[in-house]
């Protein structure tokens, strides 16, 4: 009996301590579960892992500040292996079995699209990470996508590149793209921009995504003597293109465009000076014009967390956006003081969010209201040096004009 009394007293004392401790009481509720599938393995595995690190940093940051609505945040996720067929079952489990409060997407169009019908039927707000124009078929008014490709993603993506061509008075263009989803959307947009600007398309062909040796393709392009060469390519292709362009001494005035991979630390380090003067898309680079509040602190945390995990060491490409789409969700929950999807969607539609990637405003179709896809130029790159990419000036922002950090070095090769 005496023991029982002591136990009751101890529990009561503990309850008093808990009640008067703001940190603990702030997170004493049931966790808010945010569910998602993530491409942790498969084709986009490396990118997906780096996105997850960023999302975990956001979770820890939020929980340190007392969570959302006074409740701790918990991430519930499964690896979709970049396989679309796995996604419907995962989102059904998240919603029906795990009973998550909020959902966000995996990384990439292929694995975002299969989740859409499931999420739409549950009426959940759905934040997308680097999906290209996924909503054009679904037209879901609670879908919001963080990649800043703009309201007409396929065409807005390369608009800056063709604006540069226009300013320089260039006349002819060669377009080459890999035969796969993103690259084909990219070249489709490039084709539309070229036609809109009245450019003469002298070469327009696709290549298999597995292509690594680009010498024959670049020779064929060179034979048409274009002013501009626009590539839509995947990482392995992009490496092959840059190497072949340097070996052949490719002569064109403006080269680059939609080359995936040239944003990744390992590839930039590997290609080194071969990148100089290429003009390519990017979403964030170290530049005065892109120093948004919180980005440097985030990158420091990311780079510390990424070491030894086999992911991108710089974290300039995908991780800030993975952090930012969670910020959008978190800020919306705090502002509406609710997990109600209708309220959240209305709030996201009308609000400009302050995030580590700058102000984010979504348009009607859930894409950015205006494009902020960057066209950057590699400049003064030295061999075998990763740290140089942390400095300003190695990737100069040419477009859009609102965040421009320097002028173009022109032409690509004399």
């Amino acid at each position: 009996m005496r023991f029982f009394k002591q136990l009751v007293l101890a529990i009561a004392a503990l309850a008093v301590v808990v009640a008067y401790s703001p940190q603990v009481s702030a997170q004493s509720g049931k966790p808010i579960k945010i569910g998602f599938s993530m491409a942790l393995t498969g084709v986009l595995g490396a990118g997906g892992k780096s996105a997850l690190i960023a999302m975990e940093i956001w979770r820890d940051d939020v929980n340190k500040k007392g969570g959302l609505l006074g409740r701790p945040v918990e991430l519930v996720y499964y690896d979709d292996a970049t396989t679309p067929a796995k996604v419907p079952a995962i989102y059904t489990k998240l919603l029906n079995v795990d009973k998550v409060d909020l959902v966000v997407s995996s990384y990439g169009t292929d694995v975002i699209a299969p989740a859409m019908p499931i999420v739409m039927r549950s009426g959940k707000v759905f934040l997308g990470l680097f999906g290209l124009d996924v909503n054009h078929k679904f037209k879901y008014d609670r879908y919001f996508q963080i990649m800043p490709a703009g309201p007409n993603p396929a065409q807005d993506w390369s608009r800056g590149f063709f604006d540069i061509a226009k300013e320089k008075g260039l006349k002819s263009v060669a377009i080459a793209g890999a035969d796969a989803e993103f690259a084909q959307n990219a070249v489709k947009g490039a084709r539309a921009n070229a036609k809109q600007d009245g450019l003469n398309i002298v070469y327009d062909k696709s290549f298999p995504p597995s292509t690594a040796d680009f010498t024959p393709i670049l020779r064929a392009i060179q034979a048409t003597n274009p002013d501009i060469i626009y590539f839509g390519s995947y990482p392995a292709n992009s490496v092959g293109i840059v190497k072949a362009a340097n070996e052949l001494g490719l002569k064109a005035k403006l080269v680059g465009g939609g080359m995936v991979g040239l944003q990744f630390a390992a590839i930039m380090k590997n290609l080194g000076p071969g990148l100089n003067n290429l003009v390519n898309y990017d979403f964030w680079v170290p530049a005065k014009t892109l120093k948004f509040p919180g980005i440097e602190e985030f990158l420091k945390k990311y780079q510390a967390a990424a070491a030894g995990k086999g992911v991108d060491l710089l974290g300039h490409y995908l991780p800030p956006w993975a952090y930012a789409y969670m910020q959008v969700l978190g800020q919306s929950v705090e502002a509406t003081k609710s997990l109600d999807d209708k309220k959240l969607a209305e709030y996201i539609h009308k609000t400009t969010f302050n995030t580590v990637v700058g102000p984010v405003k979504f348009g009607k179709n859930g894409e950015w209201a205006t494009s902020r896809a960057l066209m950057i130029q590699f400049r003064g790159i030295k061999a075998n040096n990763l740290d140089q990419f942390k400095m300003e000036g190695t990737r100069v922002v040419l477009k859009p004009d609102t965040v421009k950090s320097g002028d173009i070095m022109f032409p690509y090769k004399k």
Partner: protein
Amino acid sequence: MKISGFWIGIVLVLAAGFVLAGVADNQFLFFAGYVVLQGLIMAVAWNVLGGFTGYVNFGSAGFFAIGAYTAIALHQFAELPLLVLIVIAGIVCGLIGLGTGYLTLRLRGVYFAIATLAMAIVFESLITNWDYVGGSAGAYVITPAEVPFFDSFIEMMFILMLVLSLICVAVSRYLSMSRMGRGLASIRDDETAAECMGVPTLRLKLISTTVMGVMMGVAGAPFPFFVTYINPLSAFDLLIAVNAIAMPMIGGTAVWFGPVIGALLLGTIQQIVTVTISSELNILIVGVVLIGFVALAPRGIVGLFQDFARKRRGGGK
């Protein structure tokens, strides 16, 4: 009239499926169940040619994808009912299967296997460059939010897949146990000897490849409606072909129920592993289990049980 246990089993499984659809609230079961049943049809289909007839097909993903893309093309053209799409996809893939059967006139063994793999690559290139079905950028399918007689679209898809699976299993059993099945087995054991004994080898091989094609096409046709977004990369996924081979090998290729056991076992493990450990581990599991069975129990689980039963009988004497 005597009704065999098999047909009673078929009716019971079907009834269980309907009961599950009626009482289960957990939609995840239907998604996971759909994937397992899709694997089951592919395994049964592969076994008709690979197990019964002895012709190894590495191009399963090609047949599956042709089924899926036939459905996409017709859906783009006229939004036909899903059942009609499945039937047409089955016919298209059956005809391609028939064409594959004629390959066996010139190719046997490893050469036939390589030819089926090459055929899948050819089809992938064609689809990748066919803009009408989305080309390399892929195609979207918007599925209805409500369907008659079912609580949800996935519930309907699950029951549909269950019915198709049972039909495929019944066809496979008929092929295996009939006179035709003995003819196929003779081709597997020694095609030249079978030919000499008067077995109509070409006709049987053509039936075998056509049935295999129809079944794989039928498995592929509903796939775009399951994932809602399809591109050549996901439709021609190598894992589809690997699973179609691994499941019968693990279950046992000599009998009709071998691939059923293998598909239910491996498919269920894969679904559980996806939401517990890691999706990528699936591939490792398939690889390790397949190597294990090929090396230690080449006749699969069914063979293991048969050996066990034989030893017990022998011990009892």
